[in-house]
């Protein structure tokens, strides 16, 4: 089913975009490092691949004259989502370029901004690449070498967007959103944990489960002992 394929690809692109933005947030701060730049590069490449795949799929689907009207509307909706995603990706890449130029990592005179972040973004990168663990070796001066590639990539994405706009005639404003305002509240899987809370809520939740189980076991054990004692008392008397 072309639609399902498209949706899966789009979800993947969405995820990579979110991860990329998250990583660009840390550029220039004290959590910045060669590793981060390497992660950015890999995420970017993955994003590019996904974008090309998405574009091919969706253009094929939209050019197909045999699809029904609802299918066509659905594909147009997916197209708008795709194009917005690509816009955001392009902006983030441009900002990454600008920030990368302003905050080179190996120059001792230029200090990074002390933003209070201390952890690494390895987990985020792993999420982006859909792998369990990222295994990479960041080169010594990846930040400078990468910038040229980044520039070229930005050009490529810009061209792709221009081509897309010229070839596919989907006016953005005609698409109606399927989801109502507040839809994000209904289907969030994580319960209870607000990420603003720095108290270990998740652990406590697991702990609660275990403690409940333990309490149930102890209670039933006590009940059995009480029953046995009562039987013994009855027997003895």
């Amino acid at each position, binding site marked *: 089913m072309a639609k399902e394929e498209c949706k899966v690809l789009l979800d993947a692109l969405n995820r990579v975009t979110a991860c990329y933005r998250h990583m660009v947030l840390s550029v220039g701060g004290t959590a910045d490092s060669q590793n981060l730049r390497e992660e950015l590069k890999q995420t970017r490449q993955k994003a590019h691949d996904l974008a090309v795949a998405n574009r091919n799929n969706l253009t094929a689907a939209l050019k197909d004259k045999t699809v029904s009207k609802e299918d066509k509307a659905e594909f147009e909706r997916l197209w708008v989502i795709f194009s917005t995603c690509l816009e*955001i990706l392009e902006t983030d890449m441009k900002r990454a370029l600008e920030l990368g130029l302003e905050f080179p990592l190996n120059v001792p005179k230029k200090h990074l901004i002390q933003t209070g972040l201390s952890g690494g973004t390895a987990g985020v990168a792993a999420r982006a690449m859909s792998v369990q663990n990222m295994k990479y070796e960041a080169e010594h001066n990846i930040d400078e070498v990468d910038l040229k590639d980044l520039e070229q990539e930005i050009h490529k994405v810009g061209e792709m967007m221009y081509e897309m706009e010229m070839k596919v005639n989907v006016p953005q404003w005609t698409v109606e959103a399927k989801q109502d305002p507040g839809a994000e509240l209904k289907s969030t899987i994580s319960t209870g944990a607000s990420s603003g809370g720095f108290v270990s809520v998740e652990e406590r939740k697991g702990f609660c489960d275990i403690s409940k189980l333990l309490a149930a076991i102890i209670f039933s054990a006590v009940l059995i002992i009480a029953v046995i004692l009562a039987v013994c008392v009855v027997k003895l008397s």
Partner: protein
Amino acid sequence: MTIKHQGQQYRPRMAFLKKIEALVKEMQNPESGIKMQSQRVMITNIPHAMTGNDILQWIAQKLWIDNPEAQNLGNFVVKYGYIYPLQDPKNLILKPDNNSLYRFQTPYFWPTQQWSAEDTDYAIYLAKRNIKKKGILEEYEKENYNFLNKKINHKWDFVIMQAKEQYKTEKERKKVDRYTLNCQEKAYWLVHRCPPGTDNVLDYGLNRVTNPNEVQKKTISLIRKEIMYYQQALMRPTVKSSVSIGGIVKYSEQFFSNDAIISGCLPSNPWITDDIQFWELNAKLVDIPTKMRVERWAFNFNELIRDPKGRQSFQLFLKKEFSGENLGFWEACEDLKYGDQSKVKDKAEEIYKLFLAPGARRWINIDGKTMDITVKGLKHPHRYVLDAAQTHIYMLMKKDSYARYLKSPIYKEMLAKAIEPQGISNRSVLIFRSSIPFRRRRLQSSLSPVIVRQLEEEAKAREAATTVDITQVMSKLDRRSQLKKEIPPK
């Protein structure tokens, strides 16, 4: 794919941003920068916090300025979002005490000239916040959310998808980092989408037409344009500064006594003493104007013609001289210039019929060339079509009738009748006010502008009806005498 519309879409140059950035970068120096502390949050310590006092002292010492100026500069740095307060995030000022902590904002969230904070991003942020706070947003955030839902409805699916993804992505970081990231993003949006009641520091007016970041290649056509521009600049008439300054000095000396702020106003300044006599005495068409006003009419012709009472008096004078139609024409032209666009065509035609057509009821005397230009222009009437004729009449009145008016008995009578209001000293007003402490002062409201305009129009209509124009009378007499001459022979 944004459809790049032509026209105004560029943000102006924001040079101050680079200056603040340089200062903020200097603050990072481990030796000569600001002393860092760590912020204690529940059980963890988050590094890289600074006290307000440290920031203030560092700025004062680094830039060799004194404390009030350093405080002002520090306020700017906080307001534009380069440093955000940790305890009171909504109050974007630099508190110079040892208890209020601040932290640097990550460079991604610094304000830039090239990229404004987009609606899509704000929508994603609000959706994320909705998830985090389980639907409990602040009032203005809820409003913005609903508004954005309508505005970028076509992107809404993407917004929701992206918000969920970003929320899940954040889980991959440590809890401490999550807290800091949350604070950062919140601070960013407090600056770029400020809550109601705070002023938007990044407001720059409208978008501009030219891109300040564009580097223009020096092509031949560009250089030709530059040459033309400079040649025109050279041809502009310039005035010697001694002459223009002399003009300003003369004007100031003449109008010095009339200025209410410099020389005070009689009877008393209504804003200070709550006594509106000053406004009543200087109403547009008051019966007896004040002496200062009448004296001002003698300064130059513009003063006379811009004052409604002066115009009225001048009109009386001109009637006696049989040149009343001049001022009537001038007033009609003003009405045309400042009136409704829809009535322009009709008004222009009426004015032509009444004043300019050969044999018109109130024919004005302008030279042939101006008449030609005006008649040609009236084929396609617009607001300023009668400008040439109006200027001619204005100069005529100024050079001719004005001088005679100033010597006329009408003006002299007006000057003699004019009242000089007594100044009420502040003390007497205070006594007056304190003697009736509990009586509610009845504030008299002046006439509604609608009613004033109606009265003016009625007065104009009456005048138009009663104006007898001498040429008509003369022509009537002529015709009657001709008739008389004709009848007897028969």
